[in-house]
């Protein structure tokens, strides 16, 4: 980290052009990882700064997965730091539902809210692969870069995550007495 050259004005300009357009994606991914709008802003901001620090190592490959991978690492470090401060990881992990601001989702329909809640309730491993695929619309290859996994593992994780979400939704909707006909 310390051997990274200090970014100059030209580097910052290039960074602005290449990485800044992906700030929405960085925040969106962080939002689903942390399930908390305040923490998500911290993670996204810290990730942007790290990305700038390491920008000299960016070789003009695909910018979005490169940035999202940094977002993910930043989030993992934050979670670890919380663990070191004796906040058990489950506490960070188990705040499902918390992440969904009920007022914010009031604009969206009841059904959308349930889907968001079902997604938020999934374990991180399942949640993030679904977010990268369905919300950030990344190909398997790009997801593999973000998660640092072989494509085959991405595929099997995605399949499992979809099954989990479908099961969660079935439970959710059935409890409310309007099940999905085809699920």
């Amino acid at each position, binding site marked *: 980290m310390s051997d990274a050259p*200090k*970014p100059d004005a030209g580097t910052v300009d290039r*960074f602005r052009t290449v990485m800044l357009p992906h700030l929405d994606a960085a*925040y*969106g991914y962080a939002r689903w990882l942390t399930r908390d709008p*305040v923490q998500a802003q911290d993670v996204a901001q810290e990730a942007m700064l790290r990305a700038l620090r390491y920008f000299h190592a960016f070789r003009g490959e695909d910018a979005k997965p490169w940035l999202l991978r940094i977002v993910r690492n930043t989030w993992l470090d934050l979670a670890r730091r919380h663990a070191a401060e004796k906040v058990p990881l489950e506490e960070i992990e188990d705040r499902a539902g918390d992440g969904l601001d009920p*007022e914010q989702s009031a604009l969206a329909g009841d059904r959308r809210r349930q*889907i968001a809640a079902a997604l938020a309730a999934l374990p991180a491993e399942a949640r993030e692969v679904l977010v990268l695929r*369905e919300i950030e619309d990344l190909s398997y290859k790009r997801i593999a870069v973000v998660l640092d996994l072989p494509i085959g593992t991405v595929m099997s994780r995605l399949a499992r995550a979809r099954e989990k979400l479908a099961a969660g939704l079935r439970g959710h909707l059935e409890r409310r007495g309007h099940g999905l006909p085809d*699920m």
Partner: protein
Amino acid sequence: MDCPTCEAMVGAYVDGELSVAESAEFERALEACPDCRRRLEETRMVSGLLRDLPADPAPDLLRAKVERELRAIAGRPRPYPRQHLRWMATAASLIVALGIGWTGATLVSQSGRETDALMAGYLRIAMSDHPVEVASSDRHTVKPWFAGRIDYAPPVHDLTTAGFPLVGGRLDIVDGRKVAVMVYRRNRHWIALTAWPATSAGDAAASVAQRDGFALGDWRHGGFELRAVGDLAPADMKSFVTALDRAVDSDR
């Protein structure tokens, strides 16, 4: 194609990750496999539902913070007027967003103008390189600074022990009146506490509202109307309120 293969291909088929030949092969296999047809329907439905979720773009405050860091790192002379305009635009758009979306907050029902002023004041602090006019964590420095600048002695307390170190103080205008603003930090978050003498008697318990990653506290304690704005979680805002009330009480 045997079913485990077919099953493994459902996701890749929906995701457009199969070659033309593989897709054709999969479609043929599908005809003979009702289980995989059901699986395909389910995968499509899950995918459709997730894609239907509303987009959640980066908040303006985050964008402004990142911009500020980039400018600072680039080490450019700061283009004051333009930058100022941009902040004002950000502040204005945030205020509009907050104002429209705000439900259940007592602040708006009391006075939308007051909330606007507090939010704008908060943004000036959070985005400025000089968030305070008197910078000190020592209340005996900050409190006297207000003397002669404002017609009341605001409650100034360092709350470091509760995790909210005092950064300093500044003046602002709310509803045409000069008010004292005490600025605190919580890690990298700012809290702006605005205080002015209460006109009604007694304490009023704090209501804490949240919107777009901001928390707003609104209460009356120790003879002051108190409004706190910060980009932090509502639970942290509640701890801040408790810590401040305790400090005010121990001072009486």
